[in-house]
């Protein structure tokens, strides 16, 4: 099977990961869990997209990995935000606000609200 329709737009997933890691270092599963909990289960993180995103952000230098012990006593990679990551988070937040305002205005003015495919 090919991929399912992504639940989150790609840029958005990066933003959410950065925002989540800004609180404290955590491992991959915890990042997904935290996003879902904080959003009251409104957002569903596609786990298959999570790890490539983490690796990409690491390669870009926005997050860094270090070894840590997880809740089930296993040695795993904990991700934390780097200084560059903090700056990137700022940029992405501003960007997101502009985009969401834009989308909001379009939706409000439209007669038929388009349910799924609003593209940024």
């Amino acid at each position, binding site marked *: 099977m090919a991929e399912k329709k992504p639940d989150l737009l790609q840029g958005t997933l990066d933003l959410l990961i950065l925002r989540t890691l800004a609180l404290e270092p955590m491992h991959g599963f915890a990042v997904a869990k935290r996003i879902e909990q904080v959003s009251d289960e409104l957002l569903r993180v596609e786990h298959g997209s999570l790890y490539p995103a983490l690796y*990409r952000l690491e390669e870009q230098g926005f997050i860094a990995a270090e070894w840590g012990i997880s809740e089930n006593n296993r040695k795993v990679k904990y991700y934390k935000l780097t200084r560059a990551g903090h700056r990137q988070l700022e940029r992405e937040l501003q960007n997101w606000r502009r985009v969401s305002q834009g989308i909001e205005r379009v939706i409000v003015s439209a007669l038929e609200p388009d349910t799924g495919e609003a593209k940024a």
Partner: protein
Amino acid sequence: MSLLRALLRRRKLDEILDDEVQHHIDLQTQEYVQAGMAPGEAREAARQRFGRVDSVKERCRDQNRVAGVESFWQDLKFAARGFAAQPGLSAVLLATLALGIGANTAVFSVLRAVMLQPLPLAEPERIVRIYENDRLRGTTQEGASYPDYLDLKRSVQQFEHLASTQRMDVTLTGRGEPERIRAARISSNYFAALGVQPMLGRVFGPGEGGVLLSYALWQRKFGGSRDVLGMEVRLDGFTDTIRGVMAPEANSLSPRSAEVWTAAEIVRATQFRGQHNSILFGRLRSGATIEAAQAEVSAVMARLEKDYPNDNLGRGGRVVPLHEDLAANMRPALRVLSGAVALLLVIACVNIANLLLARASARGRELAIRVSLGAGRARLTRQLLTESLLLAVSGGILGLAVGFAGVKGLIALAPPDVPLIGRTSLDGAVLAVTFGISMAAWLIFGILPAIRSAVMPPLAALQGSAGNTASRGSMRLRHGLVMTQIALAAVLVIFSGVLIRSFWRLRHADIGYEPRGAISVQMKLPETRYPYPKFPYLDWPAVFGFHDRLKAAVREIPGVEAASIAFAGPDRLTWTTRTTVDGRPIPPEGEQDEAQFRTADPDYLAVTRTRLRSGRFFTADDDERHPLVAVVNEAFVRRYFPGEDPLGKRIRVYTTLRTVVGVIDDIRYGGPGLPVQPTMYMSLRQFPFPDVTLIVRTKGDPAAAAGALRQAVFSADPNVAPFEISTLEGSLRNATARERFVMTLLTVFAGVALLLATVGIYGVVAFAVGRRRQEIALRLALGAKGLDLFRQIAGGTLARTVAAILVGCMGSLALARIVEPLVSGTGTYETSTYVTVAVLILATASLGVMVPLRRALRSASSSLLLRSE
């Protein structure tokens, strides 16, 4: 941080990723279990929630540069498997690469060694050769006379050294069997002019006698012993002292250079101003130019012409840089060959491009599938680069092997007298350049289209719609490439056709004698044992005795049909001398005709099988006690007796008058490419001579008689060294060696070019037919005739092929000037050659069209195809 990075790199990244994913799924499972699922069910659900593990991991690896090295081996393995899956295509690609790289490397390596790399002498750019030329006879490459040399040497300012050498082969006795050795008489400044030092001892000084050995002779005859200095040697029966051994560079310029050098300045014999047997070398003063040296030599020669009009009327001097002079003989050949081989490289690159384009469009689907299965694009690109690298490196290695073998083959195939060819080694720079060119073609045509198709939206590629529009353009490109190939190949094939025809004419030229079955041996009777007789030099019993003993011994050899003693064999040129007809006014100096001088005994025609035209040939009675006679050839009659009967007329040869008693056919002495000269023959017994050539006709292979002939010579006189024992066919082959060399190579290149072009056509047609298989099947099912389909599909390609051949023909006409110096006879254009070649190419190209078409039509008749895909 950096420590962790290092750790990350050290531990296999895959393992870490595995751990991470496993950990994730475990936690998810745990959560599902807490929510009340059964453990097995929970694990299954967690897996589903995560998605395709392989695909995720692949994408993660794509994000990480460190992973590049990790997956390189995997890429390599994958690439190897990919090529093994298409063995035909891979083999053709590899062979094309190897031939393109190898052939170019070999030819350009030889070219560099012979023409470009500096001579292995000190400051070689200052060394020149000086020729005399003759305005009246139109010659440009004559030797200088020794008196002219001495006058030049006294007068020139632009030269640091002006040296002379005369070829004077000698017989070395007293060290094993007597042996004929290449020798030269040199001025004492000869090696100073060339810039070669003795490696042992010293060079004789001005006015001093002595012998210098070549390195090779020192090793061969004297065991490389340092005791040779001061040792006495016997050359032609005279004793002389060894003064030194020259460094190997002294023999680097020609494979046939002297093995022994003797001093010219102590020779007492008179040297005539009319005898042009000296070769002059000069070392220019530093800062002097060729032009200044030329002006100076011209001025001196003009003065000598005024001072000695009898000998020097019309004679001038010509100064040529030594390297240019050495390479002059091979330059046209090497120019044509390097042009041909460069064309071959272009054709090879086009072939690579073509095959790779086909592969790329065939792989569009495969790549699209892999993209949709989760392969990252960066990863795919890297995969393609790895594949290219694999093929490039293997092609390069094969090319190196081909180049190595090629250099050996070229040296073996080259004419025996090519200077400097022996120093050829595989040229790294050339290898790098040809390799680079092939790689550029590879990158442009192999990788870019593949990347483009990989970057295409996967769905479009899978459905094949975008693939079709994209490859329509690439199809046009491929047709263009194939036509370029055919046009270029046509040029090569036409030129090889021209040379083959020319060579065929050369080999089938009427040379006036039958070389098959004949062998010749040369010898020189030493003056010490065969002293010159008194004037008029007719009675020379010692020499006659040797002749009789030799012929008696040869007649004993089984298989010998006929044997003749003469000066010289039909494979050699002799000298010409001014000759006049008795009773006619003697023309003024400089306007007298010259004829080639030869001697022969009565059995000469039985060995050469040359036809007697009129009168008679020599008999045993034509000896020192009977009237002097001569036989002439037809060219002689045309020159001296046009419209007259020459029989009974008398000609003046040197100081004697001789009656013409017979006329024989023209023989092309010295080789089939040389013009026929007026020639006169003296009876051997009426012009005895220390230079003796024995020519023998045998039943069966004449080469088998070589050993017996040597023994026969030794039995006639153990102090005489037989030399240059060769069959007349072998000599003839050597005389046409340069022509054969170029023709053979060009034909090989043309054949390869034609093969590559055919492969190109085959590839394009097979591909086009493959794409239209369904259409063909459908149309056949609907009742279309095979022949019509054939015409529709093949017609375009064949028309384009014809056009390309025409372009090639026009190209050949435009470039004909380049091969002209290599063509003997009727010139470079012959309609029949062009037509033959065009038909040949068209026929070969048609094969490339027919084979895939026939296959497609046959398989298309099965309705199964309609359902394929």
